[in-house]
């Protein structure tokens, strides 16, 4: 009786599962057009609670995403082409020295409590908050040149001057950081209470910004409700397809759903309007798209990338002959040629991804250099390079000139299953060369200690958060940078090409003209792909599923799903029968 019953229950479950997560066709989704696309509602799920409503303290993506709808900075990055555009500032002037930028604030901008925004707020935000050592602001670093803060002062109500110790081209992009209201926060700063101000326990009406939406309600662990900010003044140069006040939507409803499977099911059931999709979910969603009234938008390679790097540190506690291999350009190139990037994309990203040739992602329309050297899969080339470097193969095993068998430990972090499978594939791709790779997945904190403090690693598979401005790579690529992973904290560049990269970064940061800057960073990308201290691998496509009820959605690789939340409309209502 027992086993038979279990079988019966399982049989009952099978039809339910075999139709796949996409669900049956039992329910019909249809669209009913709304009389006007304005005053609609947008609903989507986020994976975790915001940790704070204080933009200066926000560190992880959920908080910054939510705060992005409530606050604005002086400048913004255009999601379409990566250009720096005015936001709270209507414009700026850079003087001839490149060390002084004068911003004029947009006329008539008011905080959501009605108080006018003035230059005093800008000065307060920088001098009293971001540069205040008592404030736990992790963003402070990007607002400094060589460890020195900018000098910020107001000339009149609408004019602010930023002065830097040296010409600093990324300034305009960095000034996208949120501006905060002096009239509401100065008391907390004076009393040393700023770090606990505007926390998740603060009543929503107390959070005052200049963004398109206001926080209306927050129920911990459940949802956030944002409503339209009637005092919102849109930034200059934003094209409005409908002549009406922005934002077009009345409400944004963010439900907190900590599990991706549940998020997907909720989207399929029509409970949310859009969802970020991983390449592995695409087959399931493609089948359901028509019946559930949504479409899949593939935005092209995302900013997420993965690379391999080698320990070139002469003082590292690993066998010195290994460091000698890693310091050889030919050896690194041989590895780069041995990797079949298309296979990685097909297996790990279901074919939805792109090879990343160098340190700048092709998604970065302004600074990506299409002329960089690309390492196509070419094992013969790898063999030639290794032979030229004195390596010999005996019975399928590779030995270096002094007879050491080539075995390498490849470390990556356990938190990312994709990286672990990628490491295993790389292991298999290097095997035909006679290189024996052992994959060692480690917990993130452990890995970061080994890479940054004890230097006890050989080869590393990892990814770092990219920035639009190439100067964001300085901490990795400058020989003195604290994340110069392959040889950290060099007193002076240990190779001529590293010295040249240092010079290029010094020039690049001081050049404001975008055309001239691009030429400088092109040279860096060419050196990077020739010397390959980091073998850049692949990036998954950014994919979003969007319900047909929404309008004004123009996803771009840079701007994410919703480049401008204020331009989103709700064209139709979803009716499920």
């Amino acid at each position, binding site marked *: 009786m*027992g086993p038979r019953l279990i079988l019966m229950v399982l049989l009952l479950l099978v039809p339910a599962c075999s139709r796949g997560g996409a669900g049956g066709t039992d329910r019909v989704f249809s669209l009913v057009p709304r009389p006007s696309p304005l005053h609609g509602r947008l609903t989507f799920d986020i994976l975790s609670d915001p*940790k704070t409503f204080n933009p200066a303290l926000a*560190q992880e993506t959920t908080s910054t995403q939510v705060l992005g709808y409530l606050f604005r900075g002086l400048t913004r990055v255009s999601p379409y082409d990566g250009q720096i555009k005015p936001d709270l500032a209507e414009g700026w002037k850079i003087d001839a020295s490149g060390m002084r930028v004068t911003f004029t604030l947009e006329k008539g901008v008011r905080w959501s409590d009605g108080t006018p925004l003035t230059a005093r707020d800008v000065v307060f935000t920088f001098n009293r908050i971001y540069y205040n050592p008592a404030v736990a602001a992790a963003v402070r670093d990007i607002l400094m040149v060589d460890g020195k803060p900018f000098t910020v002062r107001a000339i009149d109500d609408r004019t602010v001057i930023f002065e830097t110790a040296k010409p600093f081209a990324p300034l305009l992009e960095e000034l996208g950081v949120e501006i905060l209201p002096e009239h509401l926060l100065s008391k907390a700063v004076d009393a040393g209470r700023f770090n606990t101000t505007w926390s998740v326990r603060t009543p929503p009406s107390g959070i005052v910004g200049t963004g398109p939406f206001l926080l209306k309600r927050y129920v911990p662990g459940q949802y956030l409700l944002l409503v339209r900010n009637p005092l919102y003044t849109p930034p200059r140069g934003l094209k409005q397809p409908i002549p009406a006040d922005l934002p077009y939507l009345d409400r944004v409803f963010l439900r907190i759903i*900590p599990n991706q499977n*549940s998020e997907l099911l909720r989207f399929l059931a029509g409970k949310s309007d859009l969802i970020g999709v991983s390449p592995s979910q695409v087959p399931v969603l493609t089948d359901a798209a028509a019946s559930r009234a949504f479409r899949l938008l593939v935005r092209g390679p995302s900013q997420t990338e993965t690379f391999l790097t080698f320990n070139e540190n002469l003082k590292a506690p690993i066998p010195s002959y290994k460091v000698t291999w890693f310091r050889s350009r030919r050896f690194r190139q041989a590895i780069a040629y041995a990797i079949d990037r298309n296979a990685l994309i097909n297996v790990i990203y279901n074919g939805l991804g792109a090879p990343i040739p160098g340190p700048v992602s092709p998604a970065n329309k302004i600074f990506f250099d299409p002329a960089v050297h690309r390492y196509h899969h070419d094992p013969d080339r790898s063999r030639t390079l290794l032979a030229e470097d004195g390596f010999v193969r005996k019975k399928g095993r590779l030995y270096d000139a002094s007879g050491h068998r080539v075995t390498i430990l490849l470390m990556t972090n356990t938190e990312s299953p994709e990286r672990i499978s990628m490491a295993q594939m790389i292991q298999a791709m290097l095997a035909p060369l006679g290189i024996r790779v052992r994959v060692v997945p480690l917990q993130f*904190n*452990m890995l970061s*200690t080994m890479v940054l403090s004890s230097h006890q690693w050989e080869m590393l598979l990892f990814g770092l958060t990219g920035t639009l401005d190439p100067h964001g790579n300085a901490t990795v690529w400058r020989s003195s940078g604290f994340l110069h992973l392959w040889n950290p904290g060099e007193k002076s560049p240990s190779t001529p090409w590293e010295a040249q990269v240092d010079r290029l970064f010094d020039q690049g940061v001081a050049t404001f003209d975008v055309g001239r800057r691009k030429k400088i960073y092109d040279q860096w990308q060419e050196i990077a792909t020739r010397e390959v201290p980091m073998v850049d691998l692949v990036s998954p496509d950014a994919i979003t599923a969007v319900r047909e009820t929404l309008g004004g959605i123009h996803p771009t690789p840079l701007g994410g799903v919703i480049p401008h939340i204020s331009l989103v409309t709700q064209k139709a209502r979803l009716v499920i029968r």
Partner: protein
Amino acid sequence: MIRALLLRLSHMLLVLLGIVFLSFVMMDFAPGDFLSQMALNPQISPRVIASLKEQYGLGLPFFTQFVHWMRALLHGNLGYSFSYHVPVSDLIAQRVPMTLLLTVTAVLVSWGAALPLAVFGARREGGLFDRTLLSFSYLSISVPSFFLALLGLLLAEKTGWFPIGGARSALSSGAGSGERLLDLVRHLLLPSLTLALGSFGVLYRLMRSSVLEVLSQPFMTAARGLGLRERVIFWRYLFRNAVNPLVTLFGMELGGLLSGAAFTEMIFGWPGMGRLMLHAVMTRDLYLVMGGVLMGAVLLLLGNLLADMMLYLLDPRVRERT
């Protein structure tokens, strides 16, 4: 009795101190801390990390940190969460009621169903009802709770009968309190049933075998032989003896009330402690983790105390010994 109780309480304090100290040691031994996640971020320099470390008090020697925390604890202060910048007690107070709502419902359902059904089944051992429930309890033990939760969600998505995750709909603020309550119950149904189903199997089997054992005891035959009424036999002899081993289990269940539902909470998006703690452990939010450990430990100890007291009342043999 009173003396024994006081002795127990003082033991409990010692055990609690031990648990808390060991957890603190383990949090310290594990590599990295709350700020380690930032170490590989190209936009955050080691200098800023060092200054944050100082602000958070993470640079202090282990023992100083522990003493500071204990001293604050004696003043009823659980410290601040690193990631939320609010007092740990606020965060926990926010989440505890939701978790208790879920777990207490589940405990009531599983115990309320398993005990009577087990007695019923055991008295007709080998019958169709007994065998069916026995097979069902096998299934309930062997299917992991997260899988059951996913099946539950799938069911909700297929049929549209239940909400898919969360604890509340986006009701307009105009909804009446009756409507709100109904909405909460609808959301509560699937997650609490999932949890209840998981422990139903264990309880059913334990209670069933315990009843069978008591049924075969000579004193049962003696009671019947004396011509006692069935109701007296049942409550005084059968149930009281059979439930004895389950009382200890009940104490353990109390201990799991706050932490036992983490998987289910994650999958159903239930805004409870499990989710908060999981995230705290992953981000190494030290004082939040310690607050959670403390709450869990207190509940476990109280549960065990309660179970022992219940045994004392139920079982004369225990009373004799103390």
